[in-house]
């Protein structure tokens, strides 16, 4: 078990965004987290990555309690994420976006960097070749020196995933990667996500609110509504669950 969430509750003032969430991910799994708008999906991500400390409950990563830990430390333990609204470093170049993710592993001190000594220069060179490798794997090596903000939307999404991969995660959290894409692009992206899962040996938790999109690649789907897990299981089971249909389409009211 790579991630284990037990009895997690997140409350903002009077609003309970997520209530009593239990979720565990096995090594190598691809799990879809779906639910209507405002169901609390992104809040779950923010709690796992340390942006919020949960009101109750514990988050365990590979047997280690990470509840309420600082986001950068959680990243260093092997959890990376993308954002629902793309948050690239848009005035920096494509390759620099990747290099930022490699920074925390840098062994050189500030003095090494200021004096540009041999130690720093060799580390910088290996960082750059590592970044180019990663960019090549997502087909962005040809635009490495362009500002990230100038890329087309689909490429920005791929770059954001690539930037998360550069931190060398074992668990990857993708927050609506297909948002704003047409069905053909979404299917393309899902294939891409399946491919990187195998290539990088990742466990992936994927948020999506269009059910169709995740059906194809998820082994397991968890459905969240109003902060509560209303259903989970294989895509087939979930799509037939009347509670899920009700959550998405509403319940017929008999007068």
């Amino acid at each position: 078990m790579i991630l284990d969430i037990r009895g997690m509750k997140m409350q903002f003032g009077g609003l309970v965004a997520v209530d009593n969430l239990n979720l565990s991910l096995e090594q190598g799994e691809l799990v879809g987290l779906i639910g209507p708008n405002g169901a609390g999906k992104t809040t779950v991500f923010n709690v796992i990555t340390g942006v919020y400390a949960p009101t109750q409950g514990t988050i365990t990563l590979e047997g280690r309690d990470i509840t309420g830990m600082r986001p950068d430390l959680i990243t260093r333990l092997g959890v990376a994420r993308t954002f629902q609204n793309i948050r690239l470093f848009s005035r920096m170049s494509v390759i620099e976006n990747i290099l930022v993710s490699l920074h925390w592993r840098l062994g050189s001190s500030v003095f090494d960097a200021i004096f540009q000594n041999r130690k720093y220069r060799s580390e910088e060179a290996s960082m750059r070749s590592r970044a180019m490798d990663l960019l090549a794997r997502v087909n962005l090596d040809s635009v490495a020196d362009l500002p990230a903000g100038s890329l087309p939307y689909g490429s920005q999404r791929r770059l954001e995933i690539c930037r998360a991969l550069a931190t060398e995660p074992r668990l990857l959290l993708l927050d609506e990667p297909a948002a704003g894409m047409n069905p053909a692009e979404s299917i393309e992206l899902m294939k891409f996500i399946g491919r990187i899962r195998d290539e990088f040996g990742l466990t992936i938790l994927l948020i999506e609110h269009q059910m169709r999109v995740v059906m194809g690649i998820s082994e397991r789907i968890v459905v969240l509504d109003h902060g509560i897990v209303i259903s989970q299981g294989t895509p087939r089971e979930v799509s037939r669950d009347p509670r899920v249909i009700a959550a998405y389409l509403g319940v017929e009211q008999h007068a």
Partner: protein
Amino acid sequence: MSRFLKRDLVILVLAAVVIAWANGDLEGLLGIPGWQSYGVRIINMCAINAILALSLNLVNGFTGQFSLGHAGFMALGAYTTALLTMDMAAKDRVFFMTPLVEPLRNLTLPFLPSLILAGLIAGLFSLVVGIPALRLRGDYLGIATLGFAEIIRLIIQNVRKVTNGALGLKGIPQVVNLWWTLGSAFICYLMLRNLINSSYGRALKSIRENETAAQAMGIDLFKHKLLSFFISSFWAGVGGGLLASLLTTIDPVQFKFHLTFQVLLMVVLGGMGSLSGSIIAAGIVTYLMEFLRIVEETHYWGSITIPGIPGLRMVIFSLALVLVVVWYPKGLMGDSELTAQGVKAFLGRFRKTLRLKGGRPV
């Protein structure tokens, strides 16, 4: 790589020859007189202002943290340098109301260690200020740093046993010359350039671009903000030290908020996030500060008398800042640097525009 170094070396040697000429070093050797002291003084001020603008730009432009505490750190550097370089006789002349505390009274150091200590003390205080203040964001950080700078100034004004209070310090040995000021500015530029182009610099820029994303990529926000703040304050301290030695007189009133504002003007005018922009703007603002003195003098044109208005320069600068923010919000350089290629491209565009205006076919 080696080609760049060779070119850099040529530029450095040329610069050294010009400095030696301006500084009057060639007079004894070759009989070539140095520049007039007024011109030299302006260049000294340009160099000091360049140091201040570069260092403020590191925090405000590259790290995206709105700090307004520069004057406070400059004051610390100026007082440190002054107290360490003045000899006992000079100190006794100045401290006639309240004598200076003992170890400082006897202590006189050469200029270089004093200047480095000035930077380190300013840096040390920046940690004291930064550890609580850098947890704030945006406007709140601006207000907090502004307040801290004022606290530093008020402490200086009131600890008379160390700083001579509101009377200030006079008779600071004038050690600085063009070598000191331009040399320090050059080292400051090199240090910041290397830092910004390194992995640490990318981390700082990522914080400016998006704090949440930077932290999610494993960047320790607090550590990097503090690093940027420390280096910035170190150079503010050095700049203050050079200023003290250039002016030979300092008092607490000099280091009020308007000084930070003046440096901030250079940073905004040059471009937040452009080192060359800061240097260019420091030159322009320093020169205009002197040139615009004519608007404060009384002019007689035949029978017409135009009275000079003291303080009008500042009105002009405020107007200039408003115009820049409205029409040129990115400043002269935006966040790009001045390169030979960039200049060529600009001249090309410029020539093209001229030709088009001339009505001739392109």
